């Protein structure tokens, strides 16, 4: 059973690979029906699958592929012209074949799918048209046999084909089978002769070898045998019976052939690559650490000789690590062609369905991307291309009326740009109509009138990604549900990618997807806020700018700034990650401009630390799913730095009002008073008598009072956070720290910006009052004062609720 499983696995892997290519080939064949090489390739696939499946006892699959093979074989011999209608049948049968293969993969059996309908269609094609098309066949036959002849003298085949007119279907089939076998036998004999003559590898390359029926099953057989030697015994009769007369010679042949092939590629379990990638991740962390230590050592032992040696080692290690990382990353890379392959077929189906004429040009299919990204990128591309076909490219009559060629073109290309892959989808259709997009969005309530007016063209293009947005009047089977483009956005953002749309009304749309090369190890921008650091994936960072605080404006409760011609909404990283902002002195701030999909956001940070290569680590089950955090990484100093999830952050930013208003609301919450003693006021005076007088004046209201003997002490109490003060009564003349300096210090703390400071002093000069105001005092009470006056000033400043009186 294990052997069977092993063979089955090989069979499935190979079949899926073959079938994938089949779609592409068939569509190309339709545009280029004369291409015999292509046709042969397709026939070969059908035949291989048939052979292998009959060997593995998948009767339904064998049955289907057998009939498919018939049709293809006729076409191959020119007895049949592949009209689009016939193509539809063939494509249908290939879809069925895929379905069967999927069923086999899931259940190890091919039961449960009805192929009879398709088989009878295939029969009709191969039988019915076979007769009708026979005159063509006569013309085509010699032409084909000429091609074949120089390679392998195969006269009988050509002769007998002339008799087909008089044969019935079954006989034709039988005849073909017989001829094929005959050719195979001859070919085999030749090959064996060659082997016998000591030529290790049969030179006949697969392409010119018309007798493909022979070639492929033979490849199949050794593959199946390779894993276990005993398997040879198990192999019953491979269907087109690759004869094994000279057993010894034959066994020798595959043995010599396979090693050559095996050395080219090895199939490796993805898990092993993932493990390797994890190990490299650890190495990168160690490297970062080493570099950090190196620079520390450099500082301490400047000028020592061994430093140079250490430097050399460190740079070699870091160089090799980087190379190693790239090399391992490359093993995980797959050409994007794997995804692109299915599009020619899709375009073909779509254009028939929509009765449009569409050409698809693919370029850059050899561009490589990480496997995990390849898996994610397929769906978005399908949606974009469907969209281009349905909404972009116009019907032929409209196109001609607009002076465009009746056939629309969609260009799909992929290329590298720095650390990113760009996938670009251009169509020469009608383009996006900004006004129409806005109207539709308004209609569906996705945006408000105000937003619509303020919207730039670029932003308006971005509307197509809104969930629920659809311009189609009716839901068709192709599009119009308003889901597809939303999927595009979500998937691309999940990959930390960006979407860029450009469109000119009337001449086409171009959608650019920018996707990072890999997911596990990324370049990040490290930013600091207060004492904390965060890593932002560099792929989402468009630029950083240094601004002064007065460049930040507040519009409708949101912070914004002008960035060249755009208005950029801003959010402070501290507001998102609940960073307690204690010190806020600097006049300047750094804004990290984040771009994701089509949207932009400015993230205000305190410092920019720099760019670093980081390894993404999960926070584990206990902490997973924290909004705004994508994971963590370990820095050179051994500390942990959290990685910002830019997608979530942008989402969260929408709910965060501007810094100013959030403070006000936070204040309101903490100031929710239920009784008079909830109000806390600090009395700062160096004289015990003065403090007692103030206490006597305020105690009757019932508020809580805290005393401090000088500015230093007051600051200490404030910082300890034991109390939440509502106001402070400050004497000016005090030892250690006077009232002005205390006020200035307090106002440095963001948290206490709005704390009312009331000066209580015997200094009455105008300049004293001025200094008081400058240092942030809100009231100025001169000694002596009446108790009632003091109480009323305090009550006013703490917003004392009258019901507590």
């Amino acid at each position: 059973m294990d052997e069977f499983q092993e063979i089955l696995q090989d069979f499935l892997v190979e079949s899926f690979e073959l079938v994938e290519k089949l779609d592409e080939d068939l569509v190309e064949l339709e545009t280029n029906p004369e291409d015999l090489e292509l046709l042969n390739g397709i026939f070969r696939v059908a035949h291989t699958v048939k052979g292998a499946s009959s060997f593995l006892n998948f009767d339904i699959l064998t049955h289907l592929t057998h009939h498919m093979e018939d049709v293809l074989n006729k076409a191959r011999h020119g007895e049949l012209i592949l009209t689009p209608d016939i193509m539809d049948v063939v494509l249908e049968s290939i879809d069925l074949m895929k379905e069967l293969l999927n069923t086999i993969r899931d259940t190890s059996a091919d039961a449960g799918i009805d192929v009879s309908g398709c088989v009878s269609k295939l029969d009709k094609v191969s039988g019915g048209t076979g007769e009708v098309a026979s005159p063509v066949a006569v013309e085509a036959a010699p032409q084909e046999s000429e091609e074949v002849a120089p390679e392998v003298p195969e006269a009988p085949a050509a002769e007998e084909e002339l008799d087909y007119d008089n044969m019935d279907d079954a006989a034709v089939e039988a005849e073909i089978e017989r001829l094929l076998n005959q050719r195979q036998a001859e070919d085999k004999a030749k090959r064996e002769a060659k082997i016998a003559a000591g030529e290790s590898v049969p030179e006949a390359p697969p392409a010119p070898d018309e007798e493909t029926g022979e070639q492929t099953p033979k490849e199949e057989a050794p593959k199946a045998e390779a894993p276990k030697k005993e398997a040879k015994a198990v192999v019953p009769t491979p269907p087109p019976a690759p004869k094994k007369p000279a057993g010894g010679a034959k066994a020798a042949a595959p043995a010599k052939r396979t090693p050559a092939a095996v050395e080219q590629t090895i199939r490796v379990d993805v898990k092993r690559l993932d493990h390797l990638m994890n190990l490299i991740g650890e190495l990168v962390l160690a490297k970062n650490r080493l570099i950090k230590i190196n620079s520390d050592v450099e500082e301490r032992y400047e000028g020592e000789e061994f430093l140079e040696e250490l430097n050399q080692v460190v740079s070699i290690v870091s160089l090799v690590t980087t190379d190693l990382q790239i090399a391992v990353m490359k093993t995980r890379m797959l050409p994007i062609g794997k995804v692109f392959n299915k599009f020619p077929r899709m375009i073909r189906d779509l254009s028939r369905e929509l009765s449009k004429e569409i050409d698809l040009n693919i370029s850059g299919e050899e561009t490589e991307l990480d496997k995990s990204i390849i898996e994610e990128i397929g769906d978005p591309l399908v949606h974009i291309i469907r969209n281009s076909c349905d909404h972009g490219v116009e019907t032929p009559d409209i196109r001609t009326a607009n002076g465009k060629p009746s056939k629309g073109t969609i260009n799909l290309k992929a290329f590298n740009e720095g650390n990113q892959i760009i996938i670009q989808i251009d169509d020469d259709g009608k383009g996006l109509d900004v006004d129409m997009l806005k109207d539709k969005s308004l209609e569906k309530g996705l945006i408000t009138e105000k937003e619509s007016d303020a919207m730039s063209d670029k932003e308006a293009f971005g509307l197509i990604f809104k969930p629920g947005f659809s311009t189609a009047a009716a839901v068709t089977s192709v599009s119009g549900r308003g889901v597809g483009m939303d999927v595009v956005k979500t998937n691309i953002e999940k990959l930390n990618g960006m979407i860029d749309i450009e469109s000119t009304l009337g001449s086409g749309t171009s959608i650019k997807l920018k996707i990072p090369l890999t997911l596990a190890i990324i370049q990040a921008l490290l930013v600091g806020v207060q004492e904390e650091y965060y890593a932002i994936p560099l792929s989402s960072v468009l630029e950083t700018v240094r601004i002064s605080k007065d460049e930040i404006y507040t519009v409708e409760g949101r912070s914004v700034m002008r960035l060249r011609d755009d208005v950029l909404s801003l959010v402070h990283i501290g507001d998102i990650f609940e960073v307690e902002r204690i010190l806020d002195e600097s006049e300047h701030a750094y804004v990290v401009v984040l771009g994701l999909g089509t949207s932009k956001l400015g993230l205000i940070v305190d410092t920019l630390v720099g760019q670093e290569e980081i390894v993404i680590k999960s926070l584990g089950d206990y902490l997973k799913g924290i909004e705004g955090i994508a994971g963590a990484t370990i820095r050179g100093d051994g500390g942990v730095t959290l990685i910002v999830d830019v997608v979530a952050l942008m989402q969260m930013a929408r709910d965060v009002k501007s810094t100013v208003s959030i403070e006000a609301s936070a204040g309101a919450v903490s100031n929710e008073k239920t009784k008079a003693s909830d109000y806390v006021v600090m009395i700062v005076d160096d004289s015990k008598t003065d403090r007692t007088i103030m206490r006597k004046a305020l105690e009757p209201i019932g508020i809580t009072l805290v005393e401090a003997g000088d500015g230093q002490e007051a600051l200490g109490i404030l910082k300890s956070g034991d109390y939440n003060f509502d106001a402070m009564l400050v004497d000016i003349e005090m030892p250690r720290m006077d009232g002005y300096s205390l006020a200035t210090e307090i106002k440095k703390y963001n948290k206490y910006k709005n704390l009312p400071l009331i000066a209580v002093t015997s200094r009455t000069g105008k300049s004293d009052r001025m200094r008081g105001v400058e240092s942030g005092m809100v009231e100025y009470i001169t000694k002596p004062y009446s108790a009632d006056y003091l109480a009323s000033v305090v009550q006013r400043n703490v917003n004392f609720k009258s019901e507590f009186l």
Partner: protein
Amino acid sequence: MSDKLKDIINKQGEQQADTGLDQSEDIVQLVGFVIGDEEYAVPILAIQEIIKPFSWTRVPQVPQYVLGVFNLRGSVIPLIDLRVKFGLQPKKQSDETRFIVMRHEDDVAGFVIDRLTMAIRIKKENIGNAPDTINGDDTMIDGVGKQEDKIITILKVNKLLERDF
């Protein structure tokens, strides 16, 4: 022949396992520690290591008792303050403060405790059920260990490591 050998080895293994079970049935090994005024304990096998406190990174949007994450030889591990989790006021870390890294299946976390006491060997028969009032699936208490002069609350490691926010 080889089958016979296998049988014998298997039997021997079974016997060993049996005797091993007998021993562990009598005695439970625990590690005791203090949080606030109470002494608690967890099974020694659930403890991966006990380390002196070092720096950690705050994580936003978590309950107050989750202090953040720290780096334990390349793994990022959450750090939980048991004082806060048990409803006590947070306290400054002292020389006696330790991080106990506990593991249950794949879940690992570090717990801040005030002070270690000792490794405790306690007879199974001396472990009572948790008081009826706090019984149930939700309790973090596995049982109460009776010793000559005091009782120790034994905690469920899997409950401690369970995310409850």
